[in-house]
């Protein structure tokens, strides 16, 4: 070990090893997915004898697959925008105003994060039946919005808390009413948080299975479609190919959204 390295920067072998093992445990199973998407054989088994891009080609020609993909994109887009919209105002309310019963209200809003998906799904299904609504992508979106609002709010709360209240007062003092203050000062300042929230909510909605399963109608979202295809061995590899693509895209989206939130903090 070099003598002049400050204490903090000295290498810590056990900790490093632990970190490597931890990440390996998390990601190696997931990485099997793209691995086998290049496998020529349709059976998921070692050894991999031949590599191919055939499944990717098949994936691109699969009409129902693409329909399901577009369903997921549509639901994700609507969910992320509406959840973020609701999240902005609730985050602002929670961080700026003294509301009686604030803590219980926040706890209730955050509840979907900890309620098991199946319970949430069944409960919403019963509620929708009661209300006489038929199941479709709209109901899926409804469920997803419920699930994503806590994500949106948590992301935005951290942005709002780091934001000095006196700037909004200065804006009011200089002649702008609440709406203009929001548009000219608040929104530009929390904007990285808004973007991060949209991306995060989109990813959550896009990958979500349980609520889509319970609340979906005849049009499947992508995870549902892929699950349905698992029964057919010869269809499986193109599903894996699609899964690999989604994995890569999700990774970049979440990474980018976290970078936005952290990078823009002064």
């Amino acid at each position, binding site marked *: 070990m070099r003598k002049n390295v400050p204490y903090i920067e000295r290498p810590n072998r056990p900790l490093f090893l632990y970190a490597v093992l931890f990440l390996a445990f998390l990601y190696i199973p997931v990485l099997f997915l793209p691995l086998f998407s290049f496998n020529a054989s349709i059976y998921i088994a070692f050894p991999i004898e031949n590599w191919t891009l055939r499944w990717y080609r098949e994936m691109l020609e699969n009409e129902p697959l693409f329909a399901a993909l577009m369903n997921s994109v549509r639901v994700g887009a609507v969910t992320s925008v509406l959840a973020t919209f609701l999240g902005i105002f609730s985050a602002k309310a929670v961080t700026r105003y003294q509301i009686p019963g604030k803590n219980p209200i926040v706890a209730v809003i955050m509840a979907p994060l900890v309620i098991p998906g199946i319970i949430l799904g069944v409960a919403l299904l019963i509620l929708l039946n009661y209300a006489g609504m038929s199941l479709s992508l709209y109901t899926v979106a409804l469920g997803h919005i419920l699930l994503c609002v806590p994500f949106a709010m948590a992301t935005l709360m951290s942005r709002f808390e780091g934001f000095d209240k006196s*700037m909004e*007062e200065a804006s*009011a003092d*200089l002649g*702008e009413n609440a709406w*203009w203050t929001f548009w000219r000062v608040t929104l530009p300042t929390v904007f990285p948080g808004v973007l991060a929230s949209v991306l995060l909510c989109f990813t959550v909605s896009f990958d979500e299975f349980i609520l889509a399963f319970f609340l979906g109608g005849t049009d499947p979202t992508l995870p549902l479609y892929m699950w349905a295809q698992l029964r057919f061995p010869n269809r499986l590899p193109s599903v894996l190919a699609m899964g690999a693509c989604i994995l890569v895209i999700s990774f970049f989206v979440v990474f980018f959204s976290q970078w936005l939130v952290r990078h823009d903090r002064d």
Partner: protein
Amino acid sequence: MSTNQAFISIDCVSKHFGEVVAVDNVSIDIPAGEFFSLLGPSGCGKTTLLRMLAGFESPTSGEIHIDGNPMSEIPPHRRPTNMVFQNYAIFPHLNVADNIAYGLRKEKLGKAERTRRVDEALEMVKLPGYGKRRANELSGGQQQRVALARALIKRPMVLLLDEPLGALDKKLREEMQLELRALQESVGITFIFVTHDQEEALTLSDRVAVMARGDVLQMASPHELYNRPVNVEVADFIGQMNFFDAQVIEVQDHMAVVDTQGLGKVQVPAAAEFIRKDAKVVVAVRPEKMELTSQPDSQNNCVRGELATSAYLGNRSHYFVTVEGSENPIEVASQGSGPESDQTLRRGSEVWLSWAEGALVLLPAT
């Protein structure tokens, strides 16, 4: 007071935050064009009062009028006031020029006119050419000037300043104080300035309201506050002061003979109600109004004491003298290097304190 409206009229205003009384039945009239300061320690209510003028808080009771108009229904964005915040509240996502021009949106000026006004404002706060800079890259002093320009460009009737110089270092603060005073005199706007620094308040203001615990203790010109404080709390807060417990022996022809613990029997003009025979009072005298000599002075009132410590400050010296009857040493300040026999004065030397007729102030006992 008079029913004729002053320019700014704060009329029996109180502010309660739940149980806490932040401002307690305060009434102040401020004429147009005055540099008025609210002075006091943290928690005295001065910032709350300022915020009520700006519209960020509403009085629990009482009325505020500006230029004859009641302000109770008027929100901050429609008041004829502008504020310079303690932490400047500069908009970090805008450059300097956009920050300054922020309040001009509603005036719908053409681009040329807008640029002209912004440049004019930058000149006024001595930051010419800074328009394109990013606002959050400026130093504290520069940001403060941008905040000032941003408020003044709107030509408000009243400028409210909330401890604007608090975060600056001493030299910059003194520079800015002079600039602010000059600015106020040239622009002619009414300034309301909040500070806890009594030197600052005395330097800048036409009048000062000294506040504590939500009340106004005394409201007067700096000269009056310094030389004729109305009670011990004000006298102690402003500058340095020596206090002596005393009792009035008799009052005759508007002069009171007072027996003090430390200065002996003294004669003081009896101008206030509390000065009656046998009343307990406090006699106060500023350090620079006393003189230290090594020989007794037959002309003036004089008392003997012992030199405890001395401090040489270059342009002046402070001496701490113990006298019989007073437990704390008396502080005496003298310009220059002190009495001619300075070199011989040591701890324990016998010295004589003298003072002129008008040097003593009588205050009610606490």
